[in-house]
């Protein structure tokens, strides 16, 4: 049985990774799940300098999901390079580094710093809804998507995945803009912007007022967008949005994703990634599927 895939020229032992921000840099989850079993670990967004993130409360649960407004707290690229990359290199898994910034220059600074590091792919976060500068500001205008992709591609030594926002009217346009800018792949969806009101406090549940909605509640939106994006471009798609089980992951693969990421599902079960890999194998076995490529984009 073959579960291995090629994503933007990088061979992966299986198509399962983690969604950025839900898995840290793997060290905390390493106690709960064998990272060797994952196709890749996608790390939490890292910027040129440390970011404090937003005030608390930063999260709240919603029906079938959650809202978060962490605000991309991160230690900055220096600590990441010294501490987190060596940790991940102990495992037989690919490393996808998620990069964030407030300006195109900041993204490029991080990408250049990573050029000589032993990582496999870059994922550029132009879709975080919880920061005032950068993030989603770059991801909602196709011209800006193309421009920033092209700028990053000039500096990048590893293949570049552009992470797209679902908070747009036309996802195909954004996918094509990333491709036109030279992206080697795209990933989607980031969270949907949402809000929760605490009716007893008569106030916002999150200090940031709005947050990004994730979890099973957004899965049908994500599957639809992955399907549309995968059919709009020739570069590979990393699909995510509410994946908790192998059945969820298989929907994304059949919609056209070459790889899938488990995000909020990790909070419900720290071993969710391993169970998704095992479940895909069991499904293939039961269905007599020899190669995962028989399933990718089969609908």
């Amino acid at each position, binding site marked *: 049985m073959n579960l291995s895939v090629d994503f933007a020229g990088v061979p992966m032992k299986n198509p399962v990774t983690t969604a950025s*921000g*839900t*898995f*840290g840099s793997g060290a*905390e*989850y390493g*106690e*709960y*799940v*064998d990272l060797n079993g994952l196709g890749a670990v996608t790390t*939490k967004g890292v910027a040129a300098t*440390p*970011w*404090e*993130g937003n005030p*608390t*409360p*930063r*999260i*709240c*649960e919603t*029906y*079938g*999901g*959650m809202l*978060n407004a*962490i605000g991309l*707290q*991160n*230690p*900055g690229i220096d*600590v990441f390079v010294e501490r987190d990359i060596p940790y991940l290199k102990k495992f037989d898994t690919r490393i996808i580094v998620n990069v964030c910034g407030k300006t195109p220059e900041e993204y490029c600074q991080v990408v250049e710093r990573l050029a000589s590091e032993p990582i496999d792919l870059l994922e550029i976060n132009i879709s975080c809804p919880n920061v005032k500068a950068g993030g989603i500001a770059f991801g909602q205008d196709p011209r800006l998507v193309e421009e920033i992709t092209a700028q990053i591609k000039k500096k990048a030594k590893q293949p570049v995945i552009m992470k797209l926002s679902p908070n747009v009217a036309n996802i195909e346009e954004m996918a094509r803009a990333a491709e036109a800018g030279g992206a080697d792949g795209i990933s989607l969806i980031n969270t949907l912007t949402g809000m929760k009101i605490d009716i007893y406090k008569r106030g916002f549940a999150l200090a940031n007022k709005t947050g990004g909605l994730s*979890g*099973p509640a957004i899965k049908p939106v994500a599957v639809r967008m992955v399907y549309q994006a995968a059919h709009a471009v020739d570069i590979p798609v990393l699909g995510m949005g509410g994946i*908790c089980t192998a059945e969820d992951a298989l929907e994304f693969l059949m919609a056209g994703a070459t790889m899938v990421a488990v995000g*909020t*599902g*990790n*909070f*419900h*079960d*720290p*071993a969710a990634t391993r169970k998704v890999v095992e479940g895909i194998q069991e499904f293939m076995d039961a269905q007599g599927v020899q190669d995962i490529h028989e399933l990718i984009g089969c609908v």
Partner: protein
Amino acid sequence: MAEKKKCKAAITSQIMLSPGIYSMWLKFPSDCNIAAQAVPGQFLSLYCREGSRLLPRPISICELAPEDRLIRIVYRIAGQGTQEFSRLLAGDSVEVLGPLGNGFARGTGAGILIGGGIGVPPMLELAKALHREGAKVQTILGYRDSDLFLASEFEQYGPVWISTEDGSAGTKGNVIDAIRENEVSGDMIYACGPVPMLRGVKAFAEEKGIPAQISMEERMACGIGACLACVCRSREEDSHSHVKNKRVCKDGPVFFAQDIEL
């Protein structure tokens, strides 16, 4: 290294201690005896059965009986998840991750244990452990009114003083008022309760020059230090992001008061 994992715990008993406050004993399987690993001040993540509720509920450990593989939790109904737990009966099961976080650093001198409201339960196992180790245990418990859940269970470990907001039992006022009125002194303060109480405890500890450990609470998602939801402001740089944001779930929930900005 063996993977840590969620354990399925059997509920051996559940009673309502007072309106909205429940006491539950959980029995763990022999291959997952987390009662033997836990220390006072740590917490458990309990998962809901209802699939629309994804996030675990962090609940502090109230008592441990490791030889019987038992952990007691005492919790308040704060929403639909804890409501679901309150309906479980003896014989039902619940999925649990833990023990999580760091417990209290126990000293051998005279201890001043302070619990406020739903911060009372974690002080019980601490009182038991300190008493067992020969430390003097002095407990001050703060309540809203005369509904003094768990208070009588502390008496076996040492003197107990009560404060109530409405004055219906003990000292009228807060836990610090009760400490001053009864001239309680000691070598180490251990406290769990709402932030205003912890602020008062921190100020009192600084005034008297007594070291204080406080247990913090914040909204959590992963419970294991990865998602960075449950941070609190710290005096020193945190080990994760170096931005003075300590993670309550991983770096805490117990901190030395002087290290945290309240």
